[in-house]
């Protein structure tokens, strides 16, 4: 999974954005099928349109050239406004109220979390240090997932969140956290301009954010009452089960990096 991701990243900016957008579309499809939202063509159609818009805003430049480089950051961060406006408009257009709050909520969560937050990974392809950022965040979240699993298997005693995900343990989470905190120093060549404070923040985002992403998808699955979101990859569940920690960590990482350094 991470391997295919890295190959696409090295094909260039637009393949990366297209790949992230397709992945987001498929991940939302899994979410919609699991939550039953897929029966509502209007809502799912609006979310698919929103995800494509996120992709487009990452590809194009600012129409009046007021932003440096590629990608229209101002529109990218404003897409949720338009998307939520569209989603809230749909029940009014169809003159329906019964059950609409649930549909609107599912559509908004689906778009913001799976479409827009994951879309940040695509927008990162516009950064001047795109390769370093994207490869690091994909590799680090994958490695911290593996670390959580391994440490949990070896030392796991105390359940982390028994109501949400019975197999995760405090020991596994701490192991993953430790790996994520050390990794920025080992792979410092990915972002040579980062200072100590930024390296610590990177470790915190991947170490804590990755775990929270995993748990937040588990909350959704737990409430729906399914073990996996889908069976897309045999033995590994759905696409959404694979990218869960990336969805949470990538946008936090991008805004952290964007706060301290010019992104493009």
């Amino acid at each position, binding site marked *: 999974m991470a391997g295919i991701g890295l190959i696409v990243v090295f094909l260039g900016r637009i393949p990366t954005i297209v790949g992230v957008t397709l992945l987001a579309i498929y991940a939302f499809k899994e979410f919609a099928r699991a939550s039953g939202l897929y029966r509502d063509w209007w809502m*799912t159609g609006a979310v698919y349109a929103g995800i494509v818009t996120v992709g487009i805003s990452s590809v194009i430049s600012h129409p009046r050239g007021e932003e440096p480089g590629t990608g229209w950051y101002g529109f990218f961060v404003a897409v949720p406004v338009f998307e939520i406006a569209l989603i809230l408009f749909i029940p009014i257009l169809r003159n329906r109220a019964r059950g609409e709050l649930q549909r609107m909520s599912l559509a908004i969560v689906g778009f913001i979390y799976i479409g827009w937050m994951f879309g940040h990974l695509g927008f990162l392809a516009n950064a001047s240090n795109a390769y370093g950022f994207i490869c690091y965040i994909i590799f680090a979240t994958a490695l911290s997932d593996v670390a959580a699993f391994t440490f949990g298997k070896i030392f796991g005693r105390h359940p982390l969140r028994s109501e949400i995900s019975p197999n995760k343990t405090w020991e596994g989470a701490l192991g993953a956290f430790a790996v994520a905190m050390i990794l920025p120093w080992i792979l410092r060549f990915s972002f040579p301009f980062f200072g100590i404070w930024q390296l610590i923040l990177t470790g915190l985002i991947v170490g804590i954010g990755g775990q929270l992403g995993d748990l937040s998808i588990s909350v959704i699955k737990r409430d729906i009452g*399914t073990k996996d979101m889908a069976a897309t990859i045999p033995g590994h569940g759905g696409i959404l089960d694979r990218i869960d920690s990336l969805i949470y960590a990538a946008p936090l990482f991008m805004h952290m990096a964007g706060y301290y350094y010019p992104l493009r």
Partner: protein
Amino acid sequence: MKKWRYDSSRDLERTPLDRLRQFPREPDILVYGLRSIVALIIRGLLRIYNRFEIIGHENLRTNRSLVIVANHCSHLDALCLLAALPLRKLHRAFPAAASDYFFQSVPRLWIAAVIVNALPFARQMRVRQSLSLCEQLLISPGTILIIFPEGTRSTTGELREFKSGIGALVAGRDVPVVPCFIDGSFRAWPKGKRLPRPRKLRLIVGAPLNYRACGRDKMEICAIAAELREAVNELRQRNGSN
């Protein structure tokens, strides 16, 4: 707060490949959208490449369930019949496709399930089971079943005998049966050729028949199959170019 009820799809544990094989399917808007777009492209190609033409289109204008019966010479036949239906009815139209041919290899499976919306028909074993699946589909209004009662593509372009299963499906059932003749599909894409050739295609739609009053014994079922074959043959003689 009352608990929300999530109406999950019933095939969450199935792999994508298994989902293509299952019937009835549970597609979402992505599949519907893709199918509609490809249908538009196919319609355009048939018009330009094969100069596709429909005669007797008014016989298909109904909102009831119906069974379309046609001769079968090539893969173009099902595409021609689908091209004669309005786009919004496309997702309720099921061409019966041989499960031993279309539901084995992955590319064919994908085309059959996503693009053509085919109904897997077991033509060697479990014919009765496939027929009862057809009967269930016909209960809900607006279903269109496309059936080639010859059972396989003709290798000579001649009309073969109709299998009696079509009689068993429509006997004693109040459902219009529309006989159709597709002219030119044998010349355009005979069995064994890799790609279609730019030959003229014509679809001739006959007047609907009804077998509501017929009994379901063997004799009458065979008589219905023969009568439908005669109806298709008549369309060919009346309008066919050969």
